[in-house]
């Protein structure tokens, strides 16, 4: 008796599972045909860093080194220098003479962005960082100041 009940129960479960399979067979696929299609990401996605400028073109970074201090993987190197008051690079007395991020080390935790008192370093939406050599993955200040144009769609939330 109980064997028969079990067999019927099993059959119902199989049919229900098959129903789910059939339902998904006719739904829109979730696979994105990257790179032909841009992926959708959330606004707070943490991609490649970008250094910011003020509207007048001055760099926001003053080379305080807090990003380098907080970085858990030691990926950031900052070297400061004193601004020439006639031709300042940043707002304030000092600017970053060198600012490098080693992308092979970066774990994209976002602490640097959180530590920055000037909002100078922001994690953007670019994530396609593959390259042919490790040296190419050490990003210079000039590279980081260049805004990226990531091939993504930012979800509106």
């Amino acid at each position, binding site marked *: 008796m109980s064997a028969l009940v079990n067999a019927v129960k099993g059959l119902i479960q199989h049919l229900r599972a098959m129903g789910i399979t059939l339902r998904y067979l006719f739904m829109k696929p979730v696979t994105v045909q990257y790179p032909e299609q841009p992926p959708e990401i959330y606004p707070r996605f943490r991609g490649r860093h970008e250094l910011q400028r003020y509207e007048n073109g001055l760099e926001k970074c*003053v*080379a*305080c*080194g*807090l990003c*380098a*201090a907080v970085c858990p993987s030691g990926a950031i190197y900052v070297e*400061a*220098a*004193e601004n020439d008051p006639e031709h300042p690079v940043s707002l*304030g*007395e*000092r600017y970053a003479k060198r600012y490098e991020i080693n992308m092979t080390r970066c774990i994209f935790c976002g602490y640097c962005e959180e530590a920055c*008192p*000037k909002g100078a370093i922001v994690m953007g939406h670019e994530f396609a960082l593959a390259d042919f050599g490790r040296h190419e993955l050490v990003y210079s200040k000039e590279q980081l100041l260049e805004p990226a144009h990531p091939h993504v769609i930012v979800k509106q939330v």
Partner: protein
Amino acid sequence: MTNENTLLDNMVTLVIDGKEVAVPAHSTVLDAARRLGIPIPTLCHYAKLIPVGACRMCLVEVEKMRGLQTACTTEVRPGMVVRTDTPEIRKARAANLEFLLTNHPLDCPVCDKGGECELQDQTFIYGPGKSRFIEEKRHKAKARILGPYVIMDQERCVLCRRCIRFLEEWADDVQLGLFERGRLTYVDTFNGEPLDTPFSGNTVHICPVGALTSRVFRFSARSWELKHTPSVCVNCAVGCNISLHTKYNRLKRIVSREHPDVNDEWLCDRGQFDHRAADGTLRITQPLVRKDGELKPASWEEALARAAEALRDAVGQYGPAGVACVGSAQHSNEANYLLQRLARGALGTNQIDMAAEVPARARLLPTTRKLEQSDLVLIAGLDLLDAAPLLELFARHAGVMGCTRFIIVGTERSHLARFGRWLQCRPGTEAAVINGLVRAILQSGRARAAAGLEQLQAWMEPYTPAAVMHAAGVPEGELLEAAEALAQAQRPTILYGGARAGDAVLRGALGNLALICGAEGPALVPAQANAIGALDMGVSPAFLPGFQPYTDTRALDRYQQFWGRRVPAEAGQGLRAWRGQKLPAALVLGEVPAGLRADFLAVITSWKAEVPADVDVVLPACAFTEADGSFTNLTGRVQWARAALRPMGESRPAWWILTQLGARLGEAGRWNFSSAEEVFAEIARCVPGYEGLSYGVLGEAGALRKLEPERLTVYEAHVSLAG
């Protein structure tokens, strides 16, 4: 209460936060709280400066006293009840910080003090967390260059006056002052004169905020990125304790380490801002060998082989007198010890000397703070500021505090003459003036009893005030007044040295004076960092290590055992004799002394400037920042300077270079040191006075070496009295 002993009479018992504590009378509430480990925030208070109570951070509540009191200026009273952590105090502290911050630019991200700022730390602990100040802040000068080493941001200043008080109480060079009033008050130099006192770096050290910062360090690193290596300054014989702050193998700044018997916590600008060792343009970083008449870069192997061969040939051809080894009062004990071992052991010669003239068994100061403990200090023929800047600082402090008077005997006016008198004499007549003083004290009948006093009296007879006036130009009245002061002094100290360290007559004359006044000294202030250590190591034709004469057969036997070689019992010549001849071969550590000429000249040095034109082999040595080494300071304290950086270029520690040379001169099986620590272990075994020392024992504070100084006896000290 009647049977309390005197010690307790001088102690005051009070209660702070419910805890009872007994402190000496005239202590402050702050001292008592710190003794209990109760934290009280302070900004203007500095343990080594007189309290002023300017910052209002240390407010505490004292029962039966109206309002809050400043702990740093309130003297303890018996039965006082103090509270340091009540809601009212917390509110006062937060309000005080909020007020300070209304006028503070809060540019911590660009401030060099960020991370080690007292205002920053206290705001985190006691601050209100929020500011209600929305108005425009006051604006003052930023990045204002005050002097060669100090740059000021007047907006960041909290008007604690530490810098001004340091300049008043220690440097006695008041070059900073307060201008304007109220919110507009600012610190500045007078009439735009530069802040160029030789101790200006200390104002940066004690500034609690980022108002005074170093121009040398400016923006080169953040405080938390720096690696600290304890080391010792090698600019003079005081041997100030320093910490080398480095980042990515680069020297960023030099900061003082506290040592009560050496530099307290101060540094002179010469030491604090001396980054020459890190300047590649000044350094020799590659072995050089003369080939076809020209100096050319070579490998270590080639340079060492060439030097060893030339030294061996010179000894083979001309005997032990064919070579000369020159030690250096600027180099470590390890380098000097190995050089003399190379000379005596491998080359079998006593031909070893150095340019610095240091008397053997010189009497030394027991501590650099001795001047503050003396009521009278006589300085003869010595520019203290030049030879030992920190001693000058302690002397000025003692002078300002009114506990010490000074008598300066010399041709140059000293700042210290402000606190006493300057017996201005003609060049080279210091000994005549001292003899005049000795005679005057003997005449007054107040000389201390000593053996040979009658003899001394007879010797000193010609040095009448009139004769001294004639010879040295010191007015008779001044001489007699100075003699009177010396005779009355309870704890006098006598200093000499600098360029005149080798002047035996002056030293003898000062010895007489010390003998009859019961003075400390005459204490030697050598002009070079390790002059005392180099002589201890036996860098002298006359002495084996520890002032043992080379004729002492027992000492020779001992060293024969230590070194496994015959140690020469034949006399060697010194620099004076070498100057008159051209030697077959010479090996020089450090600077080549003027007048030394040799057919073959090998130099072990760190500096391009020390490489003469006629050199044959240059062996590049590490600077003190790159190699471990010990230095013996002017109190006989052996201190360990640790390597903080990797050797620059191809340079190597001097002990390594000498070990390699030794190996090529047949010492391979006898010494094979692989670290400076091993060399120092041998020094501890072989050098009298250094027994029991090791790098472990030296640690961060160093240790005194124990060598008996000479005993004072009457000395003829004959000087010509021709005018």
